[in-house]
């Protein structure tokens, strides 16, 4: 392995370890309240992600936007976003993500879905994409619960 590749691998391992410590500390001190903080952070990141993807890839339609987001997910180490559907009529965005980064931070003692930051990110992204406000995003399946991938649905509140 080249020196550059080794350095990159070390940095990636360090980054993931640090994120893991942060996630663990949040849940240790705030209990299930940590999910709310991670979700809020995700919503803001999702808004920024939309702007970054628009500025970088300049997608001309939804199909290009979907491809661009997939590339962004991979390059940012967020996961493998294989299936993203933008359903404008239903005011809904669905996504299927494999190897979502939060899955690796999951603690078995915490039941339920684990990808709170990604839920928020997809919510913020969906709001900007659809021009909607007050959407919520739920994780309908999670790899930590034995699923093949994590599935998300962003939609209007109680809708």
């Amino acid at each position: 392995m080249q020196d550059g590749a080794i350095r990159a691998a070390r940095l990636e391992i360090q980054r993931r370890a640090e994120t893991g410590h942060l996630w663990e500390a949040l849940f240790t001190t705030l209990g299930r309240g940590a999910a709310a903080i991670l979700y809020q952070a995700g919503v803001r990141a999702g808004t920024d992600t939309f702007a970054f993807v628009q500025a970088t890839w300049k997608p001309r339609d939804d199909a290009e936007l979907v491809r661009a987001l997939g590339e962004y997910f991979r390059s940012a180490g967020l996961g493998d976003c294989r299936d993203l559907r933008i359903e404008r009529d239903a005011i809904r965005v669905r996504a299927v993500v494999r190897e979502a980064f939060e899955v690796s931070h999951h603690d078995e003692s915490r039941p339920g879905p684990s990808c709170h930051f990604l839920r928020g990110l997809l919510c913020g992204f969906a709001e900007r994409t659809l021009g909607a406000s007050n959407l919520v995003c739920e994780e309908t399946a999670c790899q930590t619960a034995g699923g093949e991938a994590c599935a998300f649905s962003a939609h209007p509140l109680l809708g």
Partner: protein
Amino acid sequence: MPQASAVDIRHELEALLDGVIRSTECHAIAIARTDGLVVAHRGASGLDPRIVAAVAATIVGAAEVVAQQLGQGEIEEVTIRCTQGRIIAVNAGREAVVIALYGKSENLGLAFLTLGRVAGEIGTLLDRA
């Protein structure tokens, strides 16, 4: 029993929140899921309901950790006394939290009583959703 529609449930939840504001000196009230998603809100403009919901979930979550670590059992409510007013958060079923803002002079006994009753009804409603 047929499942109630999301719109029906939202209306019922908002009616419950309106009732709290009418019957006590509550300035603002919100229902949040324990993961911080806002479910319904009423009251003071200028507050971001999404932030209020996240704060509610966070303080109740943190209080649960404190209660557990100190061996004090389950939390019944969280009260924060501030120079400008009072903040009360209570669990509403297993998956939701109600947070309410009151003035400094509010009769907290009445507030606890009302919030406790309404939180139970909210929990039941959300179970139907």
